[in-house]
């Protein structure tokens, strides 16, 4: 479960995120969409504990991110938009590094790491240096690392960028499967089709404010266009 209360982020005079309030219940896939520069990445970074808010609170499964950052972070699997990794480690070494930081036991790690590497088609490359991976492989490795410790919440920024169609299908299925098992997923994306396909609810952010939330049908009703697709709804809501 994710709760944002009066979440605000300011950079000098610029208000990147303005007083955001949002609750995402356990097991929900929440799609977060908005134009470029709307405040998606600062919001995601604040939820992931990477960025401190100017004011407001982030609660992860009832744990306050500001008061208990380590406890809150241990419940999260964070997947950034750009997969910057330690290029001189192998895929397996990278997973081990992450597992150690999350305090995973050796036996569980061996089982989980193999499982994730196979799931993301990386088993054959696990002993190769990350610098030799393609962009898509790095993106899949980041996903494997985010899932290796069985997080209760997944924060993901543009999950499908750089993935091939097979991997996109696999990730979509995986997210739906995880949500059924009680994992909460907060997903920022520009791929509206993906959001429409797998998200239970969608939030639209514009100029730092959450201007609409609801199921795709709710959003269509909001703009009085039941037959419109999400792209048309998005344009109607965010146009000046």
């Amino acid at each position, binding site marked *: 479960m994710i709760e944002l209360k009066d979440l605000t982020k300011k950079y000098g005079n610029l208000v990147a995120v303005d007083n955001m309030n949002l609750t995402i219940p356990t097991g929900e896939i929440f799609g977060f969409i908005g134009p470029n520069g709307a405040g998606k990445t600062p919001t995601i970074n604040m939820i992931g504990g*990477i960025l401190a808010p100017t004011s407001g609170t982030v609660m992860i499964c009832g744990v306050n991110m500001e008061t208990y950052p380590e406890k809150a972070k241990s419940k999260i699997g964070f997947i950034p938009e750009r997969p910057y990794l330690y290029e001189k480690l192998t895929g397996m070494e990278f997973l081990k590094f992450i597992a150690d930081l999350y305090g995973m036991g050796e036996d569980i790690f061996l089982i989980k790491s193999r499982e994730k590497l196979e799931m993301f088609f990386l088993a054959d490359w696990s002993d190769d240096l990350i610098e030799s991976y393609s962009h898509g492989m790095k993106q899949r490795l980041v996903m494997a690392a985010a899932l290796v410790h069985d997080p209760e919440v997944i924060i993901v920024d543009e999950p499908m960028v750089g993935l091939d169609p097979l991997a996109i299908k696999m990730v979509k299925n995986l997210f739906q499967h995880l949500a059924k098992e009680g994992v909460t997923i907060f997903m920022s994306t520009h791929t509206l089709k993906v959001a429409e396909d797998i998200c239970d609810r969608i939030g639209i952010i514009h100029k730092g404010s959450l201007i609409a939330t609801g199921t795709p049908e709710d959003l269509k009703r909001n703009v009085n266009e039941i037959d419109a697709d999400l792209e048309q709804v998005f344009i109607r809501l965010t146009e000046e």
Partner: protein
Amino acid sequence: MKDIITLLKPRIYSFKGKGFSKNNKGGLFKLLLFGTIGLLFWGGIFAVSLRVLCYFKEIAELGDILAHKLLSMVLLTFLFLLVFSSILTSLSKLYLSRDLSLVHSMPVPSYKVFIARWIESTVDSSWMVIVYTLPVFISYGIVYQTGLLFYINIVMTLLSLSIIASGISSVLVITAVNFLPANRIRSIFIFFGLCFFLVLFFAFRFLRPERLVDPETFGTALVYLKALKTPAPPYLPSTWAFDSMKALLYGNITEGMFHIALSWSFSGVMVFMVIIIAEAIYFKGLSKTRTAQVRLFNYRSSNRLFLKFLSRPVRAFTVKEVRTFFRDQTQWSQLFLIAALVVIYVYNFNVLPIEKAPIKTVYFQNLLSFLNMGLAGFVLTAITARFAYPAVSTEKEAFWLVKSVPIPLKNYLWIKFIIYYLPLLILTEILIVATNILLKVTPFMMGLSITNIFFMVPGVVAMGIGLGAAYPDFKSENPAQTVTSFGGLLFMMVCAGYIGAVIVIEAGPVYNLFMAGIKETGLSVFEWIWTIGSFAIVFIINILAIVLPMRFGERKLSKVLI
């Protein structure tokens, strides 16, 4: 030509934007700071050159030979420095820059891209060498009272040599990239460059030039001076430069013009050759560097049993740090450099002519040992600046991982501290013990040195980690270079102040204790109070040197935006 100028414009605009922005107050401060340091350094070279040449001038007959030999050596070194610097710069500019994909996607022939890059590379690799060798040549003009033509000739000569050096380097690089990956070539060149430098240094040290002032070995010096008259190889561009400058030193304008014309005609040939070769093979080589790296061998993870005693996060960061360090080929040359630095440092103590010192040997040995604590501290600072200071920046853009994992930043910085503290402590203690053994110091001095270093190392390392965290550069392609930034400079200055303060505060009490030991007398009450007070102050400074920078670094790093 228009295309080439257009390709150079981003560089010109970014330079303008960097230097003349009205809102860039921090930048102006840095510019002033670095400018002042640069100017002082320039002035220092000028003063030393002038002093040396004036001294040579006073020696009849021999003085001119020495001055000519020095000029010839400076020009030869200048040429080699330029070639070496040019190789590294042109490799980056021509094959490794991030914007190469963008410029090569433009509808411009690849040879024009090459020319634009080559011009940039020539300027970047030579401007600093030119600026800092200029005072040496100007000194010649002043001492030999030459006319304006000599100074114009200096500029013309240096420009010509820069073009030649850059041309030679580019031909070497373009050819080599067709056989080896560009990254590996850079490591190889750095490695061989260091080897070359060290061989030169050791050759010089083994000659023991200090013996030249000893009358007993004067026979050897005469043989050496005879060798000074040996002419330089006529096919070297530095020889044409030397002949031209030497001719103008004595007002032989025609001869001077002939040699400078020779140099410029060769520069023209070099430019012509470089363009022809580049047109033939540059793009082919570039395409090779763009392909994926070959899977040479698999890296199997070891079971790391020897690190089992560490907690999981500490172990994770330690293993990551060690692996990334040793797998990065650019680091190997740095390790080699450190090993050489240690050997040179210890060797210099070995050849010190202590027995010929005019003051009592025991006193002199122990005085050197005391000052050696400061010197070892400075060596430690240099090594810390290279390894511990960039430790946070080496996370590069993967720093998001550090912020997203459930480890407090404070712990992360302390883990970094421990990783670098232990090897640096061992290294510095080895340095201090080895040099003290060579100096044959008293047990008191040995104990004092070991204890002092034991307490100073954590302070210097904490400053490195803390200030490195306060001023990180996650975007840098080579984080080791962050030490040349404002934060790096601040680290150096704070460390120098810290080491200096410790040495100055301890100097008085250590002298009293040492002399009391020699004279076998006790200390007075005042001396006891002074001694205890001084050591207490040093202890407090040591603690503050650890705690304050680490806190400062943690506070600043927590505010860094990714």
